[in-house]
C-alpha cells in the first residue's frame, strides 16, 4: 500500500514565481523569504517522495466563471503550466499520478463527494510555486503529481469541514492504493491577504503566526471556523487557507512540526510554510 511520508502547508503567491524568473531571489526583499524554505527543501530531498498530492485553487487561469467546480481532481497524464497572461513560464511539465488519481476519484464518489474529473487541464501558480519552493528547478520533476483544485474564487466556497472530510478520503485512498509509492501531501494557499475591495492590503500577522503554530495540534479550532470567519481573519483571498485542512486531515491526529517559516509581506501576502510528519 502507498505511504504518506508527510504533509506540507505552504503559500503559493504568484510573485514568488516572478521573483524566481527575474532572478530576484537574493534581493533584500526576497532573500529572507526564500532562506526560510531551505530546511523544507532539504526535508523533501531527504524524504524522496514519488508522488505529490497538491491541493490548490485556480486563479482564473484553468477555469473561468462560466463553470466553477467546487472540487476538481486531475487524472491527466501530463499537466502543462498555464499562460497566466505573461506568457508561459520556463517550468517543466508535470507528470500525473494517473492510477492514484483515478483510485482517489473512485473513493471520493463512493464516499459521496462530487468531483469534477479532469483529463485535460493546465495548472497555474497555485501548483507551480509550491513545487518550485520544495523541489527547486530540476530538468524534470522528481515526483508525479495528483492535483486537487478547490474553489476559493466564487462564493459559495466549500466549508472548512468539507475540506477536512476530503482529507480523510484522501488518506484512505492513498493507504488503500496498491503499490509502494511514497506520497507527500501539499496543502497550499494563503496566508492572510486580500487583493480586492477597500480592505485590499489586509494582512494579519498575528493570525498567520497563530495558524502556523496551531495547524499541527490546534486543528479543531480551524476546522470549526466558518467561511466568514476565515475571510474576516485572513482576508477574502487568505481564506485559501481552508485548503491546508485537506492536508492536515490526511495526517495523524498527532503530528510533529518539523519546520516552520513565516515572512510578511511577500508582495501583498503573509507567506510561509510548515512541514509535518505523522507522530
Amino acid at each position, binding site marked *: 500500500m502507498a505511504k504518506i511520508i508527510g504533509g506540507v502547508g505552504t503559500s503559493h503567491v504568484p*510573485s514568488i514565481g516572478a521573483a524566481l524568473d527575474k532572478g530576484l531571489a537574493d534581493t533584500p526583499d526576497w532573500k529572507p523569504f526564500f532562506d526560510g524554505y531551505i530546511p523544507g527543501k532539504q526535508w523533501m530531498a531527504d524524504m524522496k517522495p514519488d508522488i505529490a498530492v497538491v491541493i490548490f485553487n485556480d*486563479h*482564473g*487561469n484553468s477555469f*473561468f*466563471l*462560466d463553470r466553477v467546480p467546487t472540487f476538481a481532481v486531475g487524472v491527466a497524464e501530463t499537466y502543462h503550466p*498555464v*499562460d*497566466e*497572461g*505573461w*506568457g508561459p513560464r520556463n517550468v517543466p511539465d508535470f507528470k500525473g499520478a494517473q492510477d492514484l488519481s483515478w483510485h482517489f476519484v473512485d473513493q471520493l464518489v463512493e464516499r459521496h463527494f462530487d468531483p469534477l474529473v479532469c483529463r485535460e487541464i493546465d495548472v497555474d501558480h497555485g501548483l507551480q510555486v509550491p513545487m518550485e519552493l520544495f523541489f527547486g528547478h530540476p530538468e524534470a520533476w522528481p515526483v508525479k503529481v495528483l492535483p486537487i483544485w478547490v474553489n476559493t*474564487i*466564487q*462564493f459559495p*466556497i466549500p466549508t472548512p469541514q468539507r475540506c477536512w472530510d476530503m482529507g480523510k478520503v484522501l488518506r484512505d485512498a492513498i493507504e488503500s492504493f496498491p503499490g509502494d509509492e511514497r506520497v507527500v501531501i501539499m496543502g497550499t494557499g494563503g496566508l492572510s491577504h*486580500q*487583493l*480586492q*475591495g*477597500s*480592505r*485590499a*492590503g*489586509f*494582512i494579519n*500577522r498575528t493570525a498567520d503566526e497563530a495558524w502556523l503554530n496551531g495547524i499541527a495540534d490546534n486543528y479543531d479550532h480551524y476546522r470549526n471556523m466558518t467561511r*466568514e470567519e476565515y*475571510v*474576516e481573519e485572513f482576508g*477574502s483571498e487568505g*481564506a485559501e487557507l481552508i485548503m491546508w485542512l485537506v492536508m492536515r486531515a490526511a495526517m495523524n491526529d498527532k503530528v510533529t512540526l518539523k519546520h516552520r517559516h513565516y515572512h*510578511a*509581506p511577500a*508582495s*501583498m501576502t503573509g507567506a510561509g510554510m510548515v512541514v509535518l510528519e505523522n507522530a
Partner: protein
Amino acid sequence: MSTIPETPLYDRAGSIRGYRMNKMAMSLGIPANREAFKADEAAFLDSHGLSEAEKTAVMTRDWHEMVALGGNLFFILKISAIDPTPMTRIGAAQAGMDHDLFLQQRLGKL
C-alpha cells in the same frame, strides 16, 4: 451576506454584472488576444460587448472602478500584464490610498 467591508467575494450581483468584462479579461490568457487588445483596445472591448463605463474603466486602467463594476481581480490581473503594473499599485487603488501610504500602512513596509 456579510458585514466585512467591501469584500467582493460576496458580491454576487456584481459578479453577474461584471461577467462580460471578466470574460474579456480571461481571453487575454491567449497570446493572439493580447495582440488584438494591444492593437486596438476599443475594438477589442467592443467585440466582447463591454458597456461604455466598462470600456472607460479598462482603457484608463482604473482598477478600482473595474472591480466596482463587477470585475474579479484574478481576471483583471491579465489586463495588468499588458503594460505591467505592480500588484501593490492595484491594491492601493482598491484601498483608495496613495501607493507609499498603502505600502506603509497596510503592508508595514518602508
